[in-house]
């Protein structure tokens, strides 16, 4: 229950940051927060009370009925890697914007782009 509340808080903070903050770096951090929330949600889906990690080598004898589900772990790893690539791309775009316009405030950028 605590896990789901944390997920909701992370996603809510992330969305608030993306929508209401004007600094581009803060928007990137907000997207990272949403991503942390979604990854936490995915990995918490596989938890089984009192389960062992799903590794067969040197396993305890009652592993067969007590494994934590391994599929959400694979999904979360994939999602973390995709998040890494997206964050790197967004930050390099922010660097390009700063080199061109010397500002990373989205309000000022809007004025420059339209006027």
């Amino acid at each position, binding site marked *: 229950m605590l896990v789901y509340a944390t997920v909701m808080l992370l996603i809510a903070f992330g969305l608030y940051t993306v929508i209401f903050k004007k600094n*581009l770096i803060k928007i990137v951090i907000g*997207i990272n927060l*949403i991503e942390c929330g*979604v990854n936490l949600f*995915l990995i918490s889906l596989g938890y089984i009370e009192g389960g062992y990690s799903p590794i067969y080598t040197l396993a305890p004898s009652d592993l067969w009925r007590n494994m934590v589900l391994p599929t959400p772990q694979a999904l979360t790893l994939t999602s973390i890697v995709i998040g890494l690539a997206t964050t790197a791309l967004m930050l390099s775009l922010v660097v*390009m914007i700063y080199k061109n316009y010397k500002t990373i405030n989205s309000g000022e950028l809007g004025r420059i782009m339209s006027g």
Partner: protein
Amino acid sequence: MVDLLSVVWTNAISLIIVIPLMGAFLTGLISKLNKKLVFPLALLSLLASFSFTVILASQVYSTGVVARALESNDPSKLTVISPSGNVIPIRIILVADSMSILMTLMASIVSVLAVIYSRDFVKKKVTQFYPLFLIMISGMYGVVLTGDLFNLFVFIEILSISTTGLIVTFDRKRAPDSAFKFIVISSISALMILFGIGILYGQYDALNIAFLAKVVRWSFLDKIAFAILLVALLMKAGAVPIHMWVPDAYGDTPAPVTAFLGATSLASLYVLFRVCFTLFGFVVNTLTVGWILIIIGLLSMFVGVTVALVQNDLKRFIAFQSISQVGFMLIAVGVGLAVSNTPQFFSYGFRALVGGVFHLLNHLIYDGLLFLTAGAIFYTSGTTDLRKVRGLGHKMPFVALFFLVGAFAISGIPPLNGFASKILIYESVYAFNPIISAIAILVSILTLAGFLRAFYSAFLGPNPTKKPKKISKLMFLSMLILTILVILVGLFPHFVVDVLVKPAVMVLINPQFYVEVFSNV
């Protein structure tokens, strides 16, 4: 030799996705050695994908749904029986039914023509352009051919990341801002799609679309997952409350990329149809969801065309018109969905769905044509601002003709293809609710008004003072092929509707065809 042919025949569906990916990395390597070989390699890989698509299309239209598991094709290994006796699917499968193969065919045609166009458009940044372009195309094929939800998420992310890279290849001043907006919106919608997929996985312990379609119920958590998926996919398609990224992203990219960006927005519409009609096909509340789609479609149509009237940049103008055409598709599919459980379905609901899917097909063709002609204007005069270009029709009469054909097609003037799909939409939506149809006809008239103004500004008028560059033969060839397609589909719509569109709609309204995939593999 016969062995190779049979391998290709059975594995066509995976080869369609893999060949552009391999071509992307080979292109990146070869561009460091010899820049002249890059374009032939890219064109060859896309032509190979196109031929495999035709092979796959012949298989799908003769035998029904085609599915391949990605690692082994032994049917006994596709599912496991858990200790409690449940059957759980365990492999990632690629599924092609009539709707997927329709999208794949159109994507392959548009991709081949865009890459032919791009040879002379892209001469300096070959190392950056072709690998990203081929990865984007492979991502699009993956989105429409996959049968597994998490695989769908991965391919959607591949598509959006490579598209962002392409937006900034040429224009280093304005494009990073548009690319930033695009990647933020794409990231948020992809993460929301992942959240919805996580909810469905947590409930049913399966990621396979065919399996989930059988077991999903309309409980509270399922409704939440459906709502999240619906909103996230409408965000990616550019429907109205979240349409701000479309004119920026479409306006600042090079022209062949924009022609394909339209295809990617329609890919997210394809995923929306897959979620509404197949994944939740047995349990969805058709009247509510249909009306939601109709209202969002109405907003998109109206806002798109009215804001387009005040645009000064040609590509942003065409992008807004593109938003309004997406509204047309949403209205038609919404009407078809809203009546799909009532007896009126057989009088006008089926025709509404046929109109919507046919409009999607036509939109890919004429939108590609319009963006390629806008690119030709940019190539010759260095700008697409309608206040600055004048009188290009004197020097480029054929490009003016292509633009005029595209403008008439998007406004729905007979005998072009826009008219064929729009008349289906008008008739069926009128039988549902006449006011919606009246608004649709008004939007078409405003579309025509906007395009006539754009045509007058860009092509008519006194002779330009500076001598414009001539466009190359390959650019001319790709625009010519698209124009011929527009006219042919307009003159013989019955052929296209009976062969391509009606099987696609039959698969959409009968989710049991898709669900039987497990007995077919």
